[in-house]
């Protein structure tokens, strides 16, 4: 049966009309699904018994609990969810002193093949639906305490643009979860056409995976650079009016001896000139078989200090959940992937 969870109010209205129910049923359904705590269609008590029966014949409420959870020594939790295609994704819950963040996955696996990412090692098994993206928020035991949502889990969000935009609509619409888009950040590797569409159709913050300011270096780390070069990505960002509230940030994983030199700082300052932004430095969490290593703490701090001296707001992201493979770049359900049959 098809889930109602993950549908927009317009889609819910169409479902109601198709069942010969009054058009306002769509609004009632959205209210029950996204604003109240029920576990079945039968609990939608302001709908007639007939309406509930008709809906129950073809639909289910549709949000599903995680199938497993691991807890880190630092309090981070990693949840495992199954998808409608009997595949699996992971979601990280990151509690902090003043905020609680959920890190959502958008795809099973990933097509982007970045050299430093564990998710990429499992290849690509499919896109998540908007409902499956939203489910990673709504079905967490901690969902009411969540303050921030980041689309930085498994997959490239803008490679699944339609479902990501739909999930953002449901997160932020008054009839949906009514969350502020300023609490939501969507990360991308820099798929330019999709990034423009995301900027145009959403108000959520943008984070771009940068990792080196040099084109040739970036293409060895991130194959997407072959198709959508950084200069083009930055050109689009530079020409976009982000307004006062919307934020663009650049993710920068530090690799020892590769992208942590003063030359990199200088080039970063040059290419980001004119963009009001922040750089998030990320400690690299080694993955099996990788030739890359993390620099030592002194180098990380020195890199940050140099960027700050160049006038770039720079933060160092705390590594969370490393002991349960929940930290940045470590999410993977490879062990649960069925072998494919391709040549």
């Amino acid at each position, binding site marked *: 049966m098809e889930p109602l969870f993950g549908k927009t109010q317009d889609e819910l209205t169409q479902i109601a009309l198709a069942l010969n129910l009054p058009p306002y049923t769509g609004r009632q359904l959205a209210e029950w699904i996204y604003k109240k705590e029920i576990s079945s269609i039968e609990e939608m008590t302001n709908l007639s018994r007939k309406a509930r029966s008709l809906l129950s014949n073809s639909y289910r409420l549709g949000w599903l609990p995680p199938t497993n959870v691991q807890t880190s020594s630092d309090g981070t939790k990693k949840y495992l969810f199954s998808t409608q295609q009997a595949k699996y994704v992971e979601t990280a819950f990151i509690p902090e002193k003043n905020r609680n963040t959920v890190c959502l996955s958008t795809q099973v*696996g*990933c*097509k*982007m*093949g970045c*050299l430093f990412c564990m998710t*990429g*090692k*499992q*290849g*690509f098994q499919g896109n998540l639906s908007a409902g499956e993206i939203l489910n990673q928020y709504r079905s967490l035991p901690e969902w009411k305490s969540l303050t921030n949502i980041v689309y930085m889990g498994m997959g490239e969000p803008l*490679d699944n643009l339609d479902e990501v935009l739909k999930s953002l609509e449901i997160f932020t619409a008054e009839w949906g979860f009514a969350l502020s888009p300023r609490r939501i950040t969507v990360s991308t590797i820099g*798929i*330019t*056409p999709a990034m*423009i569409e995301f*900027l*145009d159709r959403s108000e959520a913050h943008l984070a771009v995976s940068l990792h080196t300011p040099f*084109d040739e*270096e970036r*293409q*060895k780390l991130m*194959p*997407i*650079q*072959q*198709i*959508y*070069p950084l200069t*083009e990505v930055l050109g*689009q960002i530079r*020409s*976009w*009016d982000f307004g006062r509230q919307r934020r663009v940030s650049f993710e920068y994983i530090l690799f020892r001896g590769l992208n942590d030199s003063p030359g990199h700082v200088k080039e970063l300052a040059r290419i980001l000139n004119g963009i009001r932004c922040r750089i998030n430095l990320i400690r690299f969490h080694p993955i099996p*078989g*990788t*030739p*890359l290593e993390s620099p030592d703490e002194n180098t990380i701090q020195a890199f940050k200090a140099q960027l700050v001296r160049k006038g770039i707001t720079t933060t160092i992201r705390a590594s969370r959940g490393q002991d349960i493979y929940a930290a940045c770049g470590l999410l993977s359900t490879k062990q649960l992937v069925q072998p*494919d049959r*391709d*040549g």
Partner: protein
Amino acid sequence: MVTAHSHVVTPVTLSFSEEISSGHYLVGFPRQFEFRAGQVIGVSLQEDGPRRLYSICSGEKDPEVWILYNVIEEGYLTPRMSNLERGETIWITEPRGSFTGSREPAVWIAAGTGIAPFYSMLRSGLSGEKTLIHGSRYLEQFFFYDEFAASLGPDYIRCCSAEDDDHVYHGRVTQYLSDLGSVDPALIYYLCGSAQMVVDTRDLLIEKGISFDHIISEIYF
């Protein structure tokens, strides 16, 4: 608000569309632009329709541009595109991409239709001092076999995972590379295929001592 040149599309009229093996098609249209072998173009069926990127398969100086693709049954574009005939219109973007060939000695590694950029390089005169390792599930999917064999001779290696034949390695590309005693760390390795193929092959090459900065990858995005 922002003009993205990647959004600019141009209509072109198909000069042919041929199913060259089961579920695999080659389409062509007159060349109206310059490109570098290995580059991609966006293809859509309507001016504002969903667009997918495909490697150009023909040579830089060929009068036509060719695209090789396989039909993804659950996909939007390819099932429809496979029904198009000569004279019908598709929409294309400008060529883009830096997965381009060179005259330097190199190893080309492809899976399935990932052979397309290498065929373009071959037709553009860039096949000197190259080794090609091509993996396919079936023998009929070694596209452009005759030309690769004629140009590369023993440096053209075919890996077939589902069928056996003389002079064809039985197994996947990754298995072939695993079985190889050593690989030359001085060469550049160009990989083109699915995400899984590229990632597995890259890991294997790194394990065999190839520096990651000698590996250039193109994934079907």
